[in-house]
């Protein structure tokens, strides 16, 4: 028997055509096709699928029509699903074929070009149509709308023959059209009936800044002007606009962009209930249970969305029900807007205008071209407008979506999260101001131009996709804020930051970290297969993201009961050493509190010589790193080190790394407390503690703080009357100064408070959250309440930690003493 799967399993299985139900999709745009993509992921063979589209093209990225108009991209580049895609998925595509009638009794659709198709399920994704002002002359030659490829082509063609254009409508699309025509060399005037631009997305101050910036680019504006007539020239073509006040404006081209209307004509003629859109319930089902509808044609809970992000959310839910999973629910979307005009950074979301019962926080610096307004209500962020500096738009969007209380954040809310890392991008915080060759991701060497090009060419919409395709922001994450800005400014409102509170643990499940933990606790689950069965995992044995998380949740929830699964640990935690780029390992013995005896130093030197260790390095955590050790030598090296009492330093794990200390009052003339002794006590207590992410401590003997307690997960600073305890600091990608937790009088109290804090972190943080991320979400007030104010709770947490740590063995000694564990390190030969 060979280990390869039998060949026939790789061949396509014959599909019983007649037995499959028929799914017909009316509308070959982004909403309809995205629904199919989601459906194919869930149930690839379920339906016999036919798509009707009225345009002659396969599905393309409508959002990128503006860059096409502006000459920054070509039509070919914005195709999302080419004809091969339909063929490969066995989908019948009818282009240039408009459905004109639905017979709901016979379950058939009829197209203008004479096709008839039966359906078992029908998906309507008819999109929207531009609203045309019903004024005299609206149908003259030279009057266009801006909606599809044909419109875009017509504008490009007109720009090559004429010089003067007017865009009616100063909304998002109108301004993008105006900018595009200007880029193509036309003089362009934007006529807008409202007193300021983009009034549905911007307040007046932001709109003024936008107007000025667009004027600098050569656009002209007539605001507060209502068009009453389009006038016909001698050649039969539009030649001027006449306004309500009688004045006129000469032009050769008029683009009407005054809004869109859900395209409901087909649905209405079939007797489906429509009210400002095809009315659907939370499963995207219309009043006919066989008919679903998604996208801009839909009215959900009274709202018709005109942006692409909600369509994607709807597509996911509709697909779930078409696949007969029946568990998804669409509850509406919080949307945000970004203008896709190269070089202009603009963001708005939520109730940005404010109301009587809300408060505004405003920063206005017109000379610098920066305006920020945040609208708060009941201590929550409900709206935001950002102009000129949109670095924090993703963060605000998340606060908005999560409806998070912002009480603690309020003093610095306006100044943003500064979620960019501190290094690797030369301190730049605004992506729009950077040239194309600027390096955005310092880890993987990815520049701005490459990221934008990939987003456009591959049709990417999410941060995760950009990470996969460009590698930018996929290593240390320091540049994530910049990448998000690039994504947002390239695809506009289509980019929506992930929902922070309800993020699925990984693609293998829809459950959140919190839900998984709850199930482990409440159902007393003890193994990874038990979790996967109980929560209906989508993959047979998880992925490299969920397995280590599940293993941690199990052993931290049920210490001494759940068994550790080595195969679900990253190699470092399995081999108790740190893998290096050449596959060798580094070994870091624990030096308690950074102290060493001559015998220990000698043992390290001996081991380094005996195993020909190429590099010895003093680490930032006051340890000695032996780098370049072969994996098969590890057990023998550990055994040698153990003879001098050295144990594992856990320099490799999501665990207690080091407790860094200064010399303190034992030697230092300034020292007020015995920092070395306390550091050693803490390290011995916490030895072998597994945590959601690595944990670093420091103890300084006086406020001069030589051990750098201010940037540690737990930092302790001795003062004459006791100790100050600081938590949730970080000295890595992003330097975060630790926050004051409390002051205590004795060493014993330090142990109890620190133990309780770390146990709370162990129990509540998501896997791979550092303490800083967790405290940011949980709130320092909550942490204080649990481990400072509520003495009983502090005691309970502390006891739970001590129980979990009972009998912790040194992993090096344990492996050396247990032959069955040695297999991991043994190499076989051919």
């Amino acid at each position, binding site marked *: 028997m060979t280990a390869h799967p039998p060949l026939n399993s790789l061949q396509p299985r014959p599909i019983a055509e007649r037995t499959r139900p028929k799914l017909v999709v009316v509308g070959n745009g982004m909403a309809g096709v995205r629904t199919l993509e989601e459906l194919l992921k869930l149930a690839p063979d379920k339906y016999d699928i036919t798509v009707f589209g009225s345009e002659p093209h396969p599905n393309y990225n409508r959002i990128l029509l503006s860059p096409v108009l502006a000459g920054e991209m070509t039509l070919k580049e914005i195709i999302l699903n080419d004809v091969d895609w339909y063929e490969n998925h066995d989908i019948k595509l009818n282009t240039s074929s408009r459905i004109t009638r639905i017979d709901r009794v016979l379950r058939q659709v009829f197209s203008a070009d004479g096709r008839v198709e039966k359906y078992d399920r029908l998906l309507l994704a008819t999109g929207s149509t531009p609203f045309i002002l019903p004024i005299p002359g609206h149908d003259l030659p030279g009057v266009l709308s801006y909606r599809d490829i044909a419109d875009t082509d017509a504008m490009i063609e007109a720009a090559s023959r004429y010089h003067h254009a007017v865009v009616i409508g100063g909304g998002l699309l109108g301004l993008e059209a105006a900018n595009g025509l200007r880029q193509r060399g036309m003089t362009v005037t934007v006529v807008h009936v409202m007193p300021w631009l983009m009034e549905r997305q911007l307040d007046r101050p932001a709109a003024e800044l936008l107007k000025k910036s667009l004027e600098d680019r050569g656009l002209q504006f007539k605001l507060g002007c209502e068009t009453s007539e389009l006038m016909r020239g001698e050649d039969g073509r539009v030649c001027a606009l006449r306004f309500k006040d009688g004045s006129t404006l000469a032009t050769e081209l008029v683009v009407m962009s005054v809004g869109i209307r859900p395209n409901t004509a087909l649905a209405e003629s079939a007797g489906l209930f429509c009210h400002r859109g095809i009315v659907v319930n939370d499963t995207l089902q219309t009043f006919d249970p066989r008919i679903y509808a998604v996208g801009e044609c839909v009215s959900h809970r009274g709202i018709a969305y005109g942006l692409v992000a909600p369509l994607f959310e709807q597509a996911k839910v509709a697909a779930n029900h078409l696949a007969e999973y029946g568990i998804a629910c669409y509850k509406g979307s919080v949307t945000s807007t970004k203008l896709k005009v190269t070089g202009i950074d603009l963001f708005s979301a939520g109730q940005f205008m404010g109301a009587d019962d809300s408060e505004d926080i405003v920063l206005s610096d017109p000379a610098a071209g920066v305006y920020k307004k945040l609208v708060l209500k009941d201590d929550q962020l409900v709206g935001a407008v950002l102009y000129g500096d949109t670095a924090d738009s993703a963060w605000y969007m998340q606060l908005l979506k999560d409806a998070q209380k912002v009480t603690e954040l309020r003093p610095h809310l306006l100044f943003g999260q500064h979620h960019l890392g501190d290094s690797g991008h030369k301190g730049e915080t605004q992506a729009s101001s950077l040239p194309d060759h600027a390096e955005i991701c310092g880890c993987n060497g990815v520049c701005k131009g490459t990221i934008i090009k990939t987003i456009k060419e591959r049709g990417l919409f999410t941060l995760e996709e950009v990470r*996969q395709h460009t590698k930018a922001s996929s290593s240390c994450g320091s540049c994530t804020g910049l990448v998000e800005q690039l994504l947002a400014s390239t695809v506009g409102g289509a980019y929506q930051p992930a929902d922070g509170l309800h993020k699925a643990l990984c693609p293998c499940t829809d459950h959140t970290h919190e839900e998984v933990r709850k199930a482990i606790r409440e159902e007393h689950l003890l193994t990874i297969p038990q979790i996967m069965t109980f929560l209906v995992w989508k993959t047979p044995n998880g992925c490299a993201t969920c397995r280590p998380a599940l293993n941690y949740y199990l052993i931290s929830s049920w210490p001494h009961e759940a068994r550790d699964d080595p195969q679900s640990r990253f190699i470092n935690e399995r081999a108790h050493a740190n893998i290096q780029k050449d596959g060798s390992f580094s070994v870091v013995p624990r030096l308690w509190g950074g102290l060493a005896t001559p015998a220990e130093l000698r043992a390290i030197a001996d081991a380094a010589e005996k195993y020909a260790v190429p590099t010895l390095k003093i680490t930032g955590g006051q340890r000695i790193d032996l780098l370049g050790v072969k994996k098969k030598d590890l057990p023998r090296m550990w055994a040698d080190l153990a003879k001098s009492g050295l144990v594992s330093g856990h320099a490799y794990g999501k665990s207690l790394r080091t407790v860094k200390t200064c010399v303190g009052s034992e030697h230092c003339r300034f020292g007020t407390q015995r920092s070395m002794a306390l550091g050693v006590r803490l390290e011995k207590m916490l030895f072998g503690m597994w945590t959601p992410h690595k944990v670093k401590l420091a103890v300084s003997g006086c406020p001069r703080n030589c051990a750098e307690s201010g940037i540690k997960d737990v930092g302790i600073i001795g003062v004459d009357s006791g100790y100050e305890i600081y938590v949730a600091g970080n000295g890595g990608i992003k330097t975060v100064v630790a926050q004051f937790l409390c002051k205590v009088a004795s060493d014993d109290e330090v142990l109890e408070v620190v133990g309780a804090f770390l146990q709370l972190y162990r129990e509540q943080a998501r896997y791979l959250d550092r303490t800083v991320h967790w405290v940011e979400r949980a709130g320092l007030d909550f942490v204080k309440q649990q481990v400072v104010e509520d003495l009983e709770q502090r005691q309970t947490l502390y006891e739970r930690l001590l129980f979990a740590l009972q009998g912790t063995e040194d992993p090096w000694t344990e492996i050396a003493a247990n032959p069955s564990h040695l297999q991991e390190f043994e190499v076989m030969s051919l």
Partner: protein
Amino acid sequence: MAQWKRICTLDEIPRLGARVVERGAPPNIALFRTADDQVFALLDQCPHKQGPLSQGLVTDTHVTCPLHGWRISLVDGQAQGADAGCAATVPVQLEDGWISLESSHESH
């Protein structure tokens, strides 16, 4: 005819785990065992930066490279997702609980 050489028994590789087999010269061969006891062999280097795939996390019929997280198919060595590259597959036999490799083999 290929000469097959017995390397180890199935039990000597942990489920969802891997073992390393040294040849005369590098690279080594990585032997993988899936949850349902299928066995696969690849040259022990990731197409990305030559990371040792044997040290990765095994899921279903894939291994995730420990260096930069590329996901490699155990069946054909192809990198998954947006990554492009291929690790060399090595013929392997599982018979009567014994795992064998070709004793003088060329990588495929």
